[in-house]
Each structure stands twice: as structure tokens, then as C-alpha cells.
């Protein structure tokens, strides 16, 4: 009879510098090999779905900032589009294109963070520090557009609170000009780097079939070889006006996820350039007085504006009854809003379909049989954002 195996239990997290967020994994290890992992999540649960049932619609946007805080504008604008779908508001092309520009900027920052962190976890800190400079420039664009940097609370139901300023457009143009050079250098650093390839190829692999069964979406699903992208499948915000490619991987490993994200950044750059070049004339907000605050001057000397201002601020606007599901392609997958309205001033039920809550449950299966250092890389390449995970 053989000796019973000696297994070690290892606590990875909840606060561990290598996990980039607060989640715990209790690993059962045989030497360096991972046999099982038990996940604990919910450390930063803030009850957004409950809070949302008690707030007028326009006050929910700041909650969505705090889901995936690496790409807050996608959450904000996605939520606005969900409310617009429920209320039957259609926006003009200028608003749509402005939204595309901001959402793609957000996607770029999110992918830059994720990919550079994959670099950090495999021992290459340089790229991380280098691309963070570019992320900073995007935050300056957010600042021009919304006044905030991280939790942007961007836009309003029906459009934007202000138009792109000349400074905002100048900063976007500068960003479009600078990023390709940085991105190319970053790719030279890692993409064909022997050490990086050895560390990532075949690591944290998942098949297309398992990925679909686990509800994967976004770059993680595409890395496994399924070309599902909400922007193409259910175009919103006039994405169908643009021509862009959806990169797919083949083996669903860490390297493929890295490559898919990297290519998506290039595609997003093209999208932003096209949207900015073809930015149509028009209003930056829709004429929906029941949802969109009137200009402050009008509130002071026009009765109607004062009434609408009062109704919106006091949460007295009634929205049509109904239920809708609206999804957008978030930076890490299909970000969905299931919104039920009973006609009252607050949602009856608002459920967020948070992509990483759905796919993070596959993590134990993906790291089983691997070594600890690979598990860290797998986690960072899955792009699990604690705020979104715990809602």
C-alpha cells in the first residue's frame, strides 16, 4: 500500500498582492500542483441591486460606475441605453457616435490594464508602467467629457450633459496618434518573448464547449474560438455603421486571451478614429424633458423647465411599465441589464448580468493540475474585477 498523499492547504487571498482584488481561494496542493480550489467572493458586496430599487432612474448611474471600475463609461452608457430602451427613447447619430468613442476608449483602458498586469504577473513590470501613462491620457479625456476620472458618471438618460469640448477632441486625437507607438513597443516586449510565451501558452486552458457551458462572454470566450460579440450580434448605439474585425483565438489559454485583447485594442483604435472622423452634426442630447434636465438658465425663467427640473430631481417621473433586457459588450464580456418597471419612479427590479461573476466560477476547473504561479497568471488574464464580481 502506498503512503497517503500529503496535501497542503494554501490560502490565496482575500488580500494577496498577486490577486489584484479581494477574493479568496483556498487551494489544496500536492507539492506545487493544484488539486482543488474553493472560492469565496462577496468581500466588497454593496447591494447595488437593492439600492437600485429605491432610487430614481437617474440616480442609478453612479452605482454602475462601481461595477467594472476599469471601464466605467461602458457601464454608465450601457445602463442609459437600457433605460432608453424601456422608455422608448431613440437617440441621434451624434450621441451614438460619441458613445462609441467613449466606450471604445474604456475598452482600450480595460484591456491595457488587464494585459499589462498579465505582464507583471509573468515578471515584466516595465510594460505595465509604460502603458499606464496612456491610460492616464484616457482619464484626462474622461475628465474633459464628464469631469471625473475613475467613477465617471458619464452621460445622461437621452444623451450627454455637455458636448465634446475642443479640448476633448484634441486630446482624443493626440491619444489616437500616440497609442499605436506605445502599443507596438508593448507588443514587442511580450508578444514574441520566449519567457512570456513559455509562461502563457497552454496555461489556464478552457475549451469552447466548456466556456459556453460556463457562460463565458467577451475576450475570454473569443479566445476559446467562439466569435460571439454583442456589438455584432445585437448592434446597439449604431455599431452596425462601422466595419471592424472580431479577433478569435483557438485554444482558450492565457496567451490567446492576451492576443485577443491586444488585437481588440487595435480594432477599438480604428473604431474611435472612424467615429471621430465621421462624427455627425446634431444635438448632444435627445429632447426628452421627462428624463433630461433642462439647462439651468431655463430653470430660472421658464415655468415649464422649472416643472421638469423639479419632477426629475424629486424623482417624480414615471417610466412606462414593462421589462427589458439590454446588453452591451463590456470590456470583459456581455454586460446585461434586466430592468423591470411597474410604472413607478424607481425600478421594480434591476439585475446586472456581470460577465466576470458568471465566468469566474470556471477558475477552479481552469487551474486544476497546474502550478500555483500559473494560477496567478490565469486569474489576471481572465480579467476578474472585484467590483463587478461582487456588485
Amino acid at each position, binding site marked *: 500500500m502506498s503512503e497517503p498523499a500529503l496535501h497542503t492547504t494554501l490560502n490565496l487571498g482575500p488580500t494577496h498582492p498577486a490577486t489584484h482584488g479581494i477574493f479568496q481561494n483556498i487551494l489544496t496542493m500536492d507539492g506545487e500542483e493544484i488539486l482543488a480550489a474553493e472560492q469565496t467572493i*462577496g468581500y466588497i458586496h454593496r447591494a447595488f441591486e*437593492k439600492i437600485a430599487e429605491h432610487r430614481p432612474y437617474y440616480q442609478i448611474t453612479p452605482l454602475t460606475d462601481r461595477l467594472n471600475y476599469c471601464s466605467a463609461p461602458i457601464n454608465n452608457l450601457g445602463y442609459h441605453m437600457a433605460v432608453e430602451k424601456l422608455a422608448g427613447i431613440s437617440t441621434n447619430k451624434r450621441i451614438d457616435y460619441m458613445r462609441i468613442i467613449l466606450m471604445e476608449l474604456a475598452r482600450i483602458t480595460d484591456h491595457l490594464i488587464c494585459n499589462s498586469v498579465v505582464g507583471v504577473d509573468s515578471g515584466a513590470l516595465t510594460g505595465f508602467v509604460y502603458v499606464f501613462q496612456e491610460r492616464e491620457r484616457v482619464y484626462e479625456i474622461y475628465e474633459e467629457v464628464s469631469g471625473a476620472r475613475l467613477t465617471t458618471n458619464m452621460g445622461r438618460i437621452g444623451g450627454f450633459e455637455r458636448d465634446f469640448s475642443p479640448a476633448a477632441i484634441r486630446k482624443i486625437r493626440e491619444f489616437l496618434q500616440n497609442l499605436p507607438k506605445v502599443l507596438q513597443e508593448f507588443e514587442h516586449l511580450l508578444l514574441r518573448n520566449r519567457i512570456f510565451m513559455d509562461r502563457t501558452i497552454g496555461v489556464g486552458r478552457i475549451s469552447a464547449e466548456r466556456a459556453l457551458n460556463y457562460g463565458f462572454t467577451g475576450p475570454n470566450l473569443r479566445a476559446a474560438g467562439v466569435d460571439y460579440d454583442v456589438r455584432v450580434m445585437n448592434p446597439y448605439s449604431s455599431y452596425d455603421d462601422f466595419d471592424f474585425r472580431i479577433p478569435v483565438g483557438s485554444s482558450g489559454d492565457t496567451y490567446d486571451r492576451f492576443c485577443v485583447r491586444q488585437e481588440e485594442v487595435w480594432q477599438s483604435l480604428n473604431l474611435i478614429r472612424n467615429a471621430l472622423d465621421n462624427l455627425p452634426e446634431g444635438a448632444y442630447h435627445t429632447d426628452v424633458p421627462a428624463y433630461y434636465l433642462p439647462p439651468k438658465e431655463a430653470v430660472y425663467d421658464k415655468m415649464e423647465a422649472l416643472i421638469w427640473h423639479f419632477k426629475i430631481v424629486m424623482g417624480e417621473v414615471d417610466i412606462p411599465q414593462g421589462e427589458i433586457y439590454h446588453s452591451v459588450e463590456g470590456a470583459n464580456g456581455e454586460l446585461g441589464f434586466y430592468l423591470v418597471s411597474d410604472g413607478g419612479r424607481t425600478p421594480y427590479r434591476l439585475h446586472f448580468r456581470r460577465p466576470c461573476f458568471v465566468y469566474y466560477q470556471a477558475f477552479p476547473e481552469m487551474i486544476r493540475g497546474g502550478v500555483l504561479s500559473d494560477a496567478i497568471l490565469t486569474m489576471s488574464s481572465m480579467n476578474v474585477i472585484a467590483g463587478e464580481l461582487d456588485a
Partner: protein
Amino acid sequence: MESAKAIIETLHAKFSPGILKVDHSSDMPVVTVESSIIHDLIRFLKEEPAMGFSFLTTLCGIHYPDDPLPLGVVYHFHNLEKNLRIRIRTFVPSEDPQLPTVTDLFSAANWMEREAYDFYGIVFTGHPNLKRILNVEYLDYFPMRKEYPLEDPTREDKDDRYFGR
């Protein structure tokens, strides 16, 4: 839209007495079914080639306290090949709310069902690991049910009566 109608007809033909309501006014077909057929129906949606709803987008609880069956679960499925979506709703009583798990069909349902249990107290029979997921384990109520207020009602320093909450 034609194929959506065909799908509803097939479902009617197969599960007729269990289908309580079909609604086409929403953004996707909404089918309300009895809880006794939910597992068979979802298996049929997933495994029948003509249906092809092999992707579970999301699953969440909902509470209508005034209804005879107050607690509900809403499933969203997606047919990725034909790009069709469908919403299935089912309701259970608040005493002993039980539904069969769909984790045997979708691995994704594991945490979604735990979330619905955590917030609404819906028990998914056959679930491999049904315990609280986002809240602390010793919580003795289900916070998303409508009877639980958002804020501590005994507090006197916060009076939001006039501010739309």
C-alpha cells in the same frame, strides 16, 4: 420573429398545460411556466436541435409579495446560432420555495442559483453547493425580498421622506 413564433408553438405542443402565459410585447418572447415543468422545459430548450438555446445568459430572482406565488426566477437563454433570445419565468410560493437546479445542464447556473438563494431564499434542489455567495453566511434573512427595507428603520437621523425614496 417568425422563428420565435415557431418556438412558442413547439413549446405549446409539448408542454401545453404547464405554460401559463406567453407575452410577445417585450423585447423577447416571455414564457411564464409552472415550476413543475421548468427543468424538462429548459432541458428541451437546450438539447432539442430545433430550439438550440444552449447559452444561459443570466438567471435571477424576483419578488411580487402580493401575488399568490410571490417568488420567481427569471431565466434568459440565448440561441447563439440564430441569435434568438427567450425569457422564461416561473413562480413558487414563499413557504418552502423550491425549484429544481439547472446546474446539471449549465455550469454557469451554479453561482447564479446561489445568488438567487442568497437574496430571495429560493432553494434549488439538487444544487451541489447551495450556500450564500455574496452575503455573510450567518445572515438570517433574504435581503432582496420586498419586505426588507433598504435602511435601518429605527434610525432617526436620516429622514428621506420628502426625497423620493
